[in-house]
């Protein structure tokens, strides 16, 4: 019984970690290469979720919705990059925080105007709404397994992209010394826009995947944004591998904390108190993890490619 619960929670943790990875991969690239703190990354996640939900409802096909959501997030992301954010690369972090905070406010309000203040709900597509008995005796929702699969697939594709392609080479080079890449005649501006677009599409994909599990509402981006930052800090800024490890770590710690801390607390408190104390402690656990990692390794678990500067 306990083993089954443990396995089930491990899968839940993996699933949450994979979602975080989709967010973190894009953010860490933008962060590592353009040195841009993009608080608005969560807004792209929100755009992905809303567009996916709307298109899915209109077309009746989840796959079409996901593609539309990713495309919308990518286009919106690149538009924001071209219009405003590219002017910020040379600025200090503070200006970036303020401007992207402005982007968040704008997107939240535009979303409210377009889709209204009520939360939207998207049902799980039929072909994924069954359960799979992957652990004997504990049927597990197929949709969550699907998310894990998608996330791992994206991880593999990204790995191939970064290690084996010319674009990936430029990304790695850009993360180490971007001036040199520019000096060698690479169109840095275009590279940055492409990288930003990739990050935005991944955020959109994460939002699309979240649709059938969470309420699609204004402000959903900020909730996941902070977790994403925790992930890339733990993993080391600019490192996609670090983002994966960090995401899985945060996903597992958070899920285990949520599942088991209330149970552990019941040994000390009465049930109602134990539940609330346990829930809050599990929310704190991620930040404690991050603080410990930073005190142990002030630059995160993985250094970005070649860079220790």
């Amino acid at each position, binding site marked *: 019984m306990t083993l089954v619960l443990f396995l089930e929670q491990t899968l839940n943790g993996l699933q949450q970690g994979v979602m975080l990875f989709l967010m973190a991969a894009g953010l860490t690239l933008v*962060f590592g290469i353009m040195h841009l*703190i993009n*608080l608005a990354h969560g807004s792209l996640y929100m755009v992905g979720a809303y567009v996916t939900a709307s298109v899915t409802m209109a077309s009746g096909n989840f796959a079409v919705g996901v593609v539309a959501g990713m495309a919308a997030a990518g286009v919106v992301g690149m538009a924001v990059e071209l219009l*405003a954010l590219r*002017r*910020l690369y040379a*600025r200090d*972090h*503070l*200006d970036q*925080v*303020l*401007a992207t*905070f*402005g*982007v*968040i*406010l*704008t*997107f*939240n*309000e*535009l979303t*409210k*105007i377009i889709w209204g203040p009520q939360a939207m709900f998207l049902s799980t597509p039929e072909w994924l709404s069954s359960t799979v008995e992957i652990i004997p005796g504990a049927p597990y929702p197929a949709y969550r397994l699907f998310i894990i699969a998608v996330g791992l697939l994206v991880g593999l594709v990204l790995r191939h992209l970064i290690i084996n392609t010319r674009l990936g080479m430029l990304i790695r080079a850009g993360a180490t010394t971007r001036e040199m890449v520019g000096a060698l005649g690479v169109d840095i501006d275009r590279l940055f826009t492409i990288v930003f677009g990739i990050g935005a599409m991944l955020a959109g994909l994460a939002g699309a995947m979240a649709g059938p599990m969470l309420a699609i509402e204004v402000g959903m981006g*900020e909730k996941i944004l*902070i977790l994403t*930052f*925790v992930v890339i*800090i733990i993993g080391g*800024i600019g490192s996609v591998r670090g983002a994966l490890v960090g995401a899985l770590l945060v996903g597992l710690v958070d899920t285990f904390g949520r599942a088991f801390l209330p149970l552990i607390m019941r040994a000390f408190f009465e049930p109602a*108190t134990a539940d*609330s*104390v346990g*829930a*809050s*402690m599990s*929310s*704190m656990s991620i*930040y*404690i993890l*991050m*603080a410990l990692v*930073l*005190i142990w390794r*002030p*630059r*995160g678990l993985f250094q970005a490619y070649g860079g220790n500067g």
Partner: protein
Amino acid sequence: MISLSRRTAVHVIGLVILATLPVAADLAGEPFLTTVASRVLIYAIAAVSLDLILGYGAMVSFGHGAFFGVGAYVVGILTHHAFNGSAVPFLPGEWMGTTSAILQWPLAILVSGFFALIIGALSLRTQGVYFIMITLAFAQMLYYFMTSLPTYGGEDGLNVWERSSLPPLDLYNDQQFYYLTLAVLLAFVGLMQRFVNSRFGMVIKGCKQNETRMKALGYPVYRYKLAAFVIAGMGAGLAGALAANHTEFVGPGMMHWTRSGEIMVMVILGGLGTVIGPILGAATLLMMEEVLSQFTEHWMVILGPFLIFVVLFLRGGIYGWLIGPEKGDE
């Protein structure tokens, strides 16, 4: 010379506006404005304190709301016990709390300073983006800690049933509250002005420009930065204590990262690395909120692009724009 007089003019006009605002609000038949203005002043204190580390020391703390919240909770908790007649836990003796501002406010400052000491001591081991995120993490920890403390309201927060008592003043009188807050702000601004121009302030500014050189010159950089971090935390705690009185409520929301972000926005909007700028920033942000929300419920659609505009085109924030370029600017 011209720019100097322009700076003085901005200061004088600002002071006149602040000093006459409650009277003007009454004359205009909008006494509610005084309450709004008090809120502006309270956030101005928090913003000025953050600017000490953010603007002068280049320590980008994303957790300043935590100290604001701690200050507020000290007032809230002491009032809670005084009101209930229950003893404050973890203290020797049976102290029933207090509503006296003379005790409450210094305690709020001390306790938030203590938290700033611990958080700063750990956070200042990291730098740059990592510093931003670790301060954020500590603030979130405190946020969740207060959320999980049912004794003091947990998620729902705590009503402050009685404002602090500070005879002969009556803090329930909106005008008196306003002028008291204004006095606190001016005193704090004066103190900060002295700080940044003192030898201590020079060291902090030196660390911003070139920390390695300061170390090479033999300054214990870490200790100086930590001291600045603690002072900033204390300032935020004071603002929090006032805020608890102003809203008559304390809640974990005061420590949430969006609050820290708001205070940070005020500083950058008003003018980084100036003592007056953050006040202008607080006023601009909160008044825009107030005014725009009367025209449209979608006021953020105006505020958001405005913030982006300020960053892209108004370098030096509103204050920098008002006083114009000055000779001898860094």
